[in-house]
Structures are given as C-alpha cells and as structure tokens.
C-alpha cells in the first residue's frame, strides 16, 4: 500500500481543495439567500410566515437527493438573465449544499438577531463561529459529490482503493484517509473552540 502514497497523497490534497471550494461556494450562496430570508422572518404577517414556510421546506430536502434531482430533473442549461448556467455535477453539489446552508444561515442569523435585540451580544457574536463550523461540516458533506462524478477527496480515495489488490491494503488506505480527516478536522474544531472560549472570556470581561 505504501508504494501508492507518493502518487496518491498529492492528488488527495488537491482533491480536498475541491471540497473546500464547494463548501465555500455553498456558504456564499447560503449567506446570499439566508440573510434576507432571516430578515423576512422577523417581519410580521404573511412575509414572515412565507419565509418561515420556505425555510421549513428547505430543511426537509435531503442534500444527497437534491443533488441527484438538480442534475437529472432540471434542464442541462438554465438561462439566468444574460447568463447561461450549465448544470454540471459540481454545480449540483454546490446548490444542494447551498440549500442546507441557506436554512442554517437563516435559522442561526434569526437567533443571533433575536439575542442581539434581547441585549445578549455574546450569543449574537457566536453566529460567525457557528458559520465557520458549518463550513467545515459542509466540506465533509461535499464528499457526496463522489456519487455524481465530482473529482474530490472521496472520489480520489475510491479510485485508489479500486486500483489496490487485496482487502488488507484497501482497509489500510481507508484507515489512513480517515485518520487524516480526523487529525485535520479535530485540529480545526479545536481551533474554533479555542476562539469561541476567547471570545466568551473577552465579552465577559467587557
């Protein structure tokens, strides 16, 4: 198994960049749609109710199925004003995660806004922290792209596994990949937690 690592590891790292790109695009879309939706939910009457219903609908859509739906049920080319959008596997993953991101941003921005109104600045300040954590969760979820042909970290791992002889070598490579994910993401989570504690301490001091 070790003999494939010099070729595999650089490809894996490059593919992980694709996952990060997908998550970044999804979070950007989520902010773009989720923040106005959160603002709409603060409104009284039908506007607030409509926004709430829309977010409930978004929450009920399973990302994995939405990805297949976007790729297969929609026309391949979608005209958005002057732009012609081609529904590629990459875009279908981005948009399906963007639906999740929109619901997340909307729910948490609304909560932050309400906390801010109540005077709890700390709870409101934790919104960006939560968003960073959600971003990394989406980096992991972008592995769904392997099912529709996006070449990201899971796809690269899969192709390498298929090329290996013997279950032992495959399990060893899989364990290595899982270990890399654990080290990387636990490091990131620890960093986020540290920042959160520092923020809490600073706000408490203030």
């Amino acid at each position, binding site marked *: 198994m070790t003999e494939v690592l010099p070729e595999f590891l650089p490809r894996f790292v490059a593919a992980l960049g694709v996952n990060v790109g997908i998550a970044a695009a999804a979070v950007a879309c989520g902010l773009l749609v989720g923040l106005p939706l959160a603002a709409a939910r603060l409104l009284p009457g039908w506007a607030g109710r409509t926004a709430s219903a829309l977010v409930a609908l978004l929450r009920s859509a399973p990302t994995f*199925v939405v990805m297949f739906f976007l790729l297969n049920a929609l026309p391949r080319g979608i005209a958005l004003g002057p732009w012609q959008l081609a529904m590629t*596997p990459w875009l279908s993953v981005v948009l399906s995660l963007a639906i999740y991101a929109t619901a997340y941003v909307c729910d948490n921005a609304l909560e932050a806004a309400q906390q801010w109104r109540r005077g709890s600045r700390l709870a409101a300040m934790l919104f960006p922290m939560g968003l960073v954590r959600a971003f990394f969760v989406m980096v992991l979820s972008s592995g769904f792209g392997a099912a529709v042909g996006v070449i990201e970290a899971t796809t690269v791992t899969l192709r390498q596994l298929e090329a290996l002889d013997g279950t032992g070598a495959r399990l060893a490579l899989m364990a290595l990949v899982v270990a890399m994910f654990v080290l990387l*993401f636990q490091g990131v989570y620890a960093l986020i937690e540290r920042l959160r504690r520092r923020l809490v301490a600073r706000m408490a001091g203030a």
Partner: protein
Amino acid sequence: MPEPGRRCGRAARRAAAGAAMALATLLAAAQPRVAPAAAGSSACAAPADALARVRCGGELRVGVRNDYPPFAARDGDTPVGFEIDLARALAAGLGVRPVFSTVTPANRIATVGEGRVDLVLATMGHTVARDGEARFVRPHYYQSRTVVVGDRRRAITAMAGVAGQTVCVTVGNNTNAELAERGARLMLFANVQQLVDQLESGACSLAAQDDSLFAFHFLRPAFAARHDVKFGFSPLPWGMAVRSEDGAALAEALGHTLRGLHADGTLLRLARAHGVDTAFLEREQARWSAPPCLDEAALADPRCVAAPHDNRLQPTPFAAEVARFEAWVKARWDVEMTLAMLKTRIALDLFLQGIVFSLLLVAGAVLATVGTSLAFAAGLGASSRWLRWPLRLLLMTAQSTPLVLLMLFAGLLASAWGASSALTALATAIVVLGLFNGSNGGQAIAEARAALRRAGAPAGLRDGVMHARAQLAAFVVNATRGSPAASIIGVPELLSAQTDIASFSAERTTTFTLLLLFYMAVVSVVVALGQRWQARLAEADTGGAP
C-alpha cells in the same frame, strides 16, 4: 477535446476510399439484376416506388452521421468512414451516385420515413421495435455489443463482477436494465462525450457503452494504455433502412448487393481499412460464401438472415392505463409526466423494492441514532476511561469523516467478512447512520448531564435526554436526511431504484421529482414525529403544566 474525425488516419481513409471507388466501378459494371429506368422514360414520369425514383433520379440519397468515427465522420466537407464507403458501394451497385445528408440518432428514422432520404445508414441497431418504423435491409452489415470498459488495473472479466460496482452509463440504453438487474450501481450521464470525459478524468472507473463508440477511443494510445474492455454483452445487429411504404423493391435490390459485398470480402476489407472490428464480418463472409446462403432465396432464410434484436421490456398489466393517465394530465394541465416506474415489470419491481428499502432504512436509522445516542451518552459519562476513550475516538471519527467515506469503509469491512447481500448493505448503512448521528446526539446528552451535575441538579440519563431533546431530535432528522447516501454502498433504496429506472427508460424529470417528493415527505413525517415527542417530554418535564 479535439474533433474526433480528424484523428482517423488519413492514409487509411484514402486507401479505403480507393478500395471503395474500385469496387464501385466493378459493381456498376457487373450489376445485372434490375435494368435501370432511363431518366425521362415514361416509367420515370411517375415512379412507382423508391427504387424507381432512385434509378430515374440517378442518385441515392443517403442519411449518414457525421460524428461517429470510424463509421461516419467528416474530413472537411467530405464524409468519410466505413458506412460512407459502404453507401458508395451500394449506390454503385444500383448504378447511381450517392448524395449524403446528415442525420442524427434522434431524427434518422423520421428522415427516411418522411422521404427526405432514400436510405438511412447511420449506426442504427436493428430492433423489433424499430421494425415497425422502417423497412430494414437484410442482411445486417455490422454487429456491435455493449462493452464494459474500465481502468486496466481493475480485474473484472464477466457480468457477475459488476455487482456492487459503480458503472457509468448514458441514459436511455436498454442494456442498462441488464446491468441494474446484476446489481451494478449506475451513474448517469446525458451523452457519450460526458461519459468518455468522466472515464478519462478518473471520475468513473467503469463505463458501459456500445463497442463501436469505444473503437475510436481505443485508437488513441493514451486511452488504450489506461483502459481495456472487461467484457461484452447484448449483441446488436446494425441495419440500414428504407421507407416502409414504398421501399420493398429498393430494400431487396440493396440486400442483393449487400450479400455480395459480404460474400466477396469487400465489407471485411473496408472494415479493416477503417479500423472497425471484424469478428462479425468474418462470420458473415463465411456464411454468405457457402450453402444454404448461396441460394437466391437466402435473404428470406432464417439460417442466413439474423432476427432483429428484441430489447423490449415486459410491460406491466396496467401500462396502458398509466399511459392514458399521463395523456389526461397532459391534456388537463399541460404537464409532461412520464411514470416510467409503473410501465415495465422491471421498473415496477425496482420501484417497489426501493420504497420498502427506503422505509426500512429510515426506520432503522432513526432507531439506531436514538440507541447509539443513549449508548454514547452513558459511555461518555462513565467513570471508566477504558469505556470513555474508545467512544471519544469513535465520536471524533464520526465528526471528522465524510459520511460517504464512512459508508464505504463500513461496506468494505462488511464485504471483507464475506457479506454482500442487499440486506447486509442495509444493516451496514443503518449502523453507519446510527454511529454518525448518534455519536453527536450522545455527546449532546452527555454535555447536558455534565451541565446539570455542575448545577447540582439530578443528572441521570433520562434527565440528560430531557434537556438535550431538541439536539437529539435534530440528529434523528439528520439521520433521515442522510439515509439516501446508503445507495453508494448498494442499498437498493428508492434513489438507487429511480436511478436505475431512469437509466433505461430515459425519463428523468418525473422520476427524480417523485424521488425528491418522497424523501421530503419522509423527512417531514420524521420532523413532525420528533416535534410531537419533544412536546410530550416538555409536558412530562413540567408535570403537565402549560
């Protein structure tokens, strides 16, 4: 991607064209069967049928493709390829000149049916279904088969090897049904170019398509170095066709010429010159060079002429009613809807199985998430570090690994232990979904218990659940939402079933819309049940006070 037609060896094409020209001259000189009607003669004032029209006009209008090397492509403005040279030889046999028009797979039958061409010779499989749409010239001039092509490092040699493997296919191929039945997980692509691109980029490691398509790609050294043909199945005879209404005599005349081209080895030489597979043509040459196929009546003899390929899927008993319902919806609301899953037996079986597996999967995932949450909550709060630390390690793994990768890891472990059935895959997926979500749910309960303990309140497992009920419900919903990912390890749930159905029915919009609605409904039900459960707990917590 460079223009494929330009990659064909020009020298080979010139050699083939030269061979065809020489052959045409020979055939024109030797053609005794039907005396040509002189243009301007009384017979030509009102030609009786397609053959008379061709002879009177002095030209055979042939519909050919321009994008399928080495069979038919363009070299500048000039059509080139095996089928082009065959058309030239056939026209020469009739003593007329060929005039080429471009057709596509989508319009080729309509083009000949509407009389815009006399003959369509365009990589067309002769099937029972198409027999009713055009008159096919016998004998067949080529035979393709569906091949599974993949990375050379993959050791798959027979259909049995595709079970549980991801195979990339283009939508609308009936042979996809066979792959789905054998347990392959199909990844769909809209067209052949996408399929080849995905194969070359490494996104697909196996792809199934007609071998005539891959023939061109295997001429490219880079492609041939990385890929090979694993196995072939479902042979499909290729036929050229004329119009049903008035094409009988033309089909017969072309048939006589064609059998001569088989018998004297001309077709075989053309195939070799263009790099086309010759296995079928070698068999045909032997067949048409010996009794009983030497006889004039051989074109009607089943020992000489192969039957069309029957690729029709068995309809359900209520397929006609479904079609009427679709027409009614179209007429009533102007909505195009195709319920492919209800029209053929195989689709219906896949659909029903998909629903059952999806419901089992969701129910299992919900129970596993709750059970794992409780187990983790108890374990993470245990006094023994031998219990706490392994669970923390598992928790970290679940929090840091893509769900798909965890599924595949578990699937690999299961298959290493020799478990490879659909039920095993289902059980594996339930365990993974339970671990993935339940570990987080357990952490939430454990943290709630710790907070209660710090506050000096009762901190039993039940108290923890009571305080972390919203998070627990959220992770249960998350498990439901993530359940379709189980399709990646071969659980035949509804996503997997609908993908298979779309692969051979070519209908995707209704199929995937229904799939999305189904899963959204299931998630909504789980959300509603979760809310009801939380409300009950809240009621118990407050002792029934509002």
